[in-house]
């Protein structure tokens, strides 16, 4: 048991020490991308694990990225202020759409399609206001006019790696915090049977709204971070339906019921895309998504708990075959 408690700390130290020992810029770049997207996928899974499947997260991510960049370019507001404003905007958007959804008991298919409309709206607004946002051609935050720290722009990959690592760890911390709270039990009850949960005294609307806002805040932070790191955003890379589907896909492949599942999903999807890109060059265009799509279908049919989720479950049943009386693993 000692080792189990120590291992997260050891892994953390190893991850922090990594860039000081090994500083190949390309590999660091891949690691940073994996960390940022892991955080985004984790944010999606915060809701997804409770049966609140949203295809609107592309919208939240787009708001995070674009509000931050627009404030910096047009008003000169530093991202240190811009990011909280962007997160607040995403949270407000989430409440506007989600509150009536939950209040009027819009669930399942209908919830998915309402959130789909949300990401459609954000995508179209970005495209329509092309005088400010550059439309579908994309948008670049202005290069720093002074302090790098104030502009949150760093040329140095190590700095970015540490920032991304910190945010990723924050995501896991939030996950743990939700996991240990009463809200988790309430939300699990809601995802099993909403009416029964309401009858048992759970405030269904408030509980769902809480987790939605948390998820939207985190997703918009991921969007802002992605924008600051890549220094280029376009409606197709940070908003819209394909980004939303990409989040769902990675979370499901990794396993959305375990905290590290979305991270495993990000590692698999990004490595897959990179390997194909290097292996096939420009011929690989389209192949990565082809493999993604097939994997997504295969996983949903055969392994709905994802790679990590299924592994954890198998290990548990092998180690302690007589645990059936205990409340089972979170699912």
């Amino acid at each position, binding site marked *: 048991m000692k080792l189990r408690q120590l291992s997260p700390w050891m892994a953390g130290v190893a991850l922090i020490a990594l860039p000081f020992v090994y500083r190949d810029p390309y590999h660091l770049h891949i690691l940073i991308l994996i960390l940022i997207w892991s955080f985004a996928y984790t944010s999606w899974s915060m809701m997804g694990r409770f049966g609140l499947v949203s295809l609107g997260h592309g919208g939240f991510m787009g708001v995070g990225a674009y509000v931050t960049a627009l404030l910096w370019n047009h008003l000169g507001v530093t991202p240190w202020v811009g990011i909280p404003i962007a997160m607040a905007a995403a949270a407000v958007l989430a409440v506007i759409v989600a509150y009536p959804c939950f209040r009027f008991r819009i669930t399942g298919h209908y919830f*998915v399609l309402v959130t789909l409309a949300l990401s459609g709206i954000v995508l179209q607004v970005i495209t329509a206001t092309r005088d400010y946002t550059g439309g579908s051609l994309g948008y670049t935050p202005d290069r720093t006019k002074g302090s790098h720290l104030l502009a949150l722009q760093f040329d140095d990959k190590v700095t970015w790696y540490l920032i991304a690592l910190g945010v990723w760890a924050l995501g896991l911390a939030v996950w743990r915090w939700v996991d240990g709270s009463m809200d988790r039990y309430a939300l699990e009850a809601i995802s099993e049977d909403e009416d029964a949960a309401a009858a048992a005294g759970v405030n269904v609307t408030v509980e769902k709204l809480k987790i939605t806002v948390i998820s939207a805040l985190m997703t918009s932070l991921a969007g802002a971070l992605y924008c600051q790191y890549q220094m280029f955003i376009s409606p197709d890379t940070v908003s819209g339906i394909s980004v939303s*589907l990409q989040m769902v896909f990675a979370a499901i492949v990794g396993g959305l019921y375990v905290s590290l599942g979305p991270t495993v999903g990000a590692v698999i999807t990004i490595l897959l895309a990179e390997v194909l890109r290097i292996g096939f060059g420009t011929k690989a265009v389209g192949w990565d998504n*082809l493999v993604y799509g097939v994997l*997504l279908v295969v996983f*949903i049919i055969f392994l709905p708990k994802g790679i990590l989720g299924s592994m954890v479950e198998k290990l548990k049943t092998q180690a302690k075959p007589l645990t059936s009386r205990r409340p089972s693993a979170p699912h």
Partner: protein
Amino acid sequence: MTDIFDIYLLEAVVNGILLGGVLALLALGLNLIFGVIDVTWICYAELVMIGMYGMYYLVQYFGLPYYLAAPLTILLVAALGALLHLLVIAPLLSAPPINQLLATGGVLFVLQSFATVAFGIDFRNIGIRLPVLQFAEMHFSYARLLAFGAALTGMVLVYLFMTRTYVGTAIRAIAQDRQIMALMGVDTRRIYLITSALGGALAGFASCLLVLQYDIHPFVGLSFGPITFLICVLGGLGNFVGGFVAAFVFAEIISLGGLFSDLEWGYVLAFAFFIVMMFIRPAGLLARRR
């Protein structure tokens, strides 16, 4: 208000009606699947995209005339629909509805990237240009007029099929109660397969008409796919008449919104209208109040 303004307004209204015809046709097939199998085909518009490529290759490479290529394309997409049901939906019939929806999301990726890999990302055009109809200083696309007429015909044909044939009756019965019908000696699996093929055929039919209006590229599905889902939900999932009405409401909002500003704002308005309507009438425009 000047006269010119009114002409533009009228033109936008009529074009909205014509656009509504195309959208209604798209919504029809999706509604059929929704209503009978209770599954959302997120990849529906991608089936249409594949159909459009089918038309392109049949007409451009094999030199088939349009009216011969169209039935072949409809058959091809119908077969794809049946295949989609057998490979993806059938194993998931007892899974949570969300899983079915996401699995078809995976199929969306597969079809899109298959088209990218196989056909490239170039914009292609079937090379048939229908004349533009001019009437009292207003311009209407002949292709849209054709699509409008075809959508109405399609609606009537599907209606007749559903009410006048044994299979159609069985389909409607299953949509009402899927457990009991199996006990009544109806082969549920067969009916599902037929419905999927029919839904695919309608997608193929739509692609034959859309190919006249739009350039073909692997991501063309994204430009009308989301709208189609929203229309189906707005009309009430599985409610054919509701879907038909919703298609025209949506098309008018897009067309009129686009008149006063950019086309994108028309879409934004339509999406916002959808979200508001979900709160006011969650069961669809024409749902009876309970």
